[in-house]
């Protein structure tokens, strides 16, 4: 098997306040292979955005800080590198797009200026070449009248067009990895589908790996190959998309799936599991899902379950004592 583009190992990112340390991302590991689209799903507040900002090393510090773990980008650990090196990586090797296309572009600069800036930071060339490349990117993401849009301001574009601009900007330096933090959540259904199709086609065309963060399992079904399910800062299940839908193991994943009657009906949000995501750091002993789990038993309240490998499948792990068959614990 090929070496992964991104390999996150035991990452822990905490926020420090007067109340002490709040581990928003607690000991998570995953990897993304070349050309792969990995989904990260979970309810609001489970630490998806903090995970992606940690990879970019853009967690607001203070109060946030990467406490431990490794983030390997093609083998280079990003956790200890300098800000200077990170600036070379951001936008060039790892790019990111965000949830809110309405506010993710600077309202006071023309689209062209913002695109050219993104290219100029990392590439050599003259004004003409930058401009041509910017226009080409706008065409690549399927925007009509690309030349005209170069001279427009963000408020003159619709949400879907702005998200296309964001994608054009993110891909303009040919990054190996694109992190998309809920890129379609703020868009209406038809535009959502178009943006997902665009990302899928660019993934195939450019061979860019994608980390797709979402709380919508429909999105996962549409474009991801593998998925990790996060709960309260931890990975609770990891499997191929097929296994997650056909053979979910964690009670939380099953709950997520049950609350989507038809995965193609993307209008439905997931949350009908009773109870709420616990505040990170509020549960110190036992399984973090125990309060909402219908299978909860004594052991769940006493110990924190490790990740267990699910036997029949390929790479399928689950953080739940129900799947302890003795000897299959990863203890991480």
């Amino acid at each position, binding site marked *: 098997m090929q070496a992964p583009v991104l390999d996150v190992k035991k990452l822990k990112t905490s926020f420090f306040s007067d109340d002490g340390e709040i581990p928003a991302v607690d000991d998570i590991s995953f990897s993304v292979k070349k050309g792969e689209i990995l989904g990260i799903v979970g309810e609001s507040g489970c630490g998806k955005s903090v995970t992606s900002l940690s990879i*970019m090393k853009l967690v607001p510090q203070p109060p946030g800080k990467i406490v431990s773990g490794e983030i390997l980008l093609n083998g280079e650990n990003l956790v200890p590198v300098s800000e200077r090196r990170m600036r070379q990586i951001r936008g060039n090797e790892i790019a*990111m797009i965000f949830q*809110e296309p309405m*506010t*993710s572009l*600077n309202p006071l*600069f023309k689209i062209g200026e913002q695109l050219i800036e993104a290219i100029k930071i990392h590439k050599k060339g003259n004004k003409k070449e930058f401009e041509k490349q910017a226009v080409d990117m706008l065409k690549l993401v399927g925007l009509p009248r690309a030349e005209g849009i170069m001279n427009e*301001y963000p408020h003159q574009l619709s949400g879907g067009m702005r998200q296309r601009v*964001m994608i054009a900007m993110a891909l303009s330096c040919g990054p190996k990895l694109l992190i998309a933090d809920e890129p379609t959540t703020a868009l209406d259904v038809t535009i959502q589908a178009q943006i997902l199709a665009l990302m899928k086609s660019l993934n195939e065309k450019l061979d860019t790996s994608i980390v797709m963060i979402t709380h919508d399992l429909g999105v996962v079904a549409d474009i991801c190959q593998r998925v990790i399910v996060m709960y309260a800062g931890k990975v609770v299940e990891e499997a191929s998309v097929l296994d997650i839908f056909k053979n979910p193991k964690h009670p939380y994943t099953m709950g997520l799936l049950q609350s989507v009657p038809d995965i193609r009906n993307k209008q439905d949000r997931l949350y009908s599991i009773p109870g709420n995501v616990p505040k990170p750091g509020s549960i110190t002993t036992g399984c973090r899902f125990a309060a909402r789990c219908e299978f909860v038993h004594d052991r769940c309240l006493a110990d924190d379950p490790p990740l267990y490998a699910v036997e029949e499948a390929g790479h399928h792990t689950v953080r739940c004592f129900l799947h302890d068959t003795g000897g299959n614990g990863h203890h991480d």
Partner: protein
Amino acid sequence: MLAYTIRRILSLIPVLLGLSLIVFFMIRAIPGDPAQIILGQLATKEAVAELTKQLGLDQPWFVQYFTYLGGLFTGDLGESIKTKSAISEEIWPYLAATLELSFCAIAIAIFVGVNAGIISAWYQNSWFDYIAMVLALIGVSMPIFWLGLMEQWVFAINLDWLPTSGREEVRNPISSITNIYMIDTLIQGRFDQLWDVIKHLILPSVALATIPMAIIARITRSSMLEVMRSDYIRTARAKGLRMFWVVYKHSLKNAIIPVLTVIGLQTGLLLGGAILTETVFSWPGMGRYIVDAISARDYPVIQSGILVIAFIFVMINLIVDLLYAAIDPRIKYN
């Protein structure tokens, strides 16, 4: 942008008319008969009637007003009772002195205030932030008058670094062309005098700049803090842009919009503050011109002096409005 500019300028016409009306009636609301007051209690009835006629005060108010307004349109501000010369001519040296002082003061206030605010926001909760904000808090509540005296005491009297008062060295007088001494000395190539002018400007400018500087620093800081939390700033950082450009390009352009409002208002207030500062530093500006006119009951001068200051205030706000539109593309469209 051009259409917007023209629209904004046209919209000033009613403002300026209203302004001239207010000043006109304000002067006339001062109790007592001006002619009588000017000539004193012992003047004869005939002399008072003569002067009343001469001043045009025997006419109905609207005739007086339109005569005055007509004069304004041709740049005629009336005639001083005391010196008998045209106000439009004798006002300029005073106005130039005030403009030069105010310009230096607002330039200092903006430069120091905006940068202190930016750095405080960038390094929020650092020692720089704490010290700057404590100083700003002290600055806002500083009486300029007292500050001016303290400056003189420390830097002029005790340390003898800078002159106590005035605009120029008496032994080395400046031959004025524009009456803006920094420009005059520059075009004459008299750099020794330019240095003199700057030395004279420092203390009064700093005194005058203190309050607006403190206010601008605080507003800039809070505006920057808000902008720096926004999504597009995260986007700029995610591109790999250096923090310096993230702050001074992407953040500042957005954060400066609310600061501009404050700068406009503070520049107006500064003109008021200038009168106080001019008194402390014996600065021969509009403050002295108007105060002298008040003690001489020189009504036309008081009226025109106030009108000129008010006119500048309106112009500054026009400039601020146009700057908004130049910075924010969204303004023109709604």
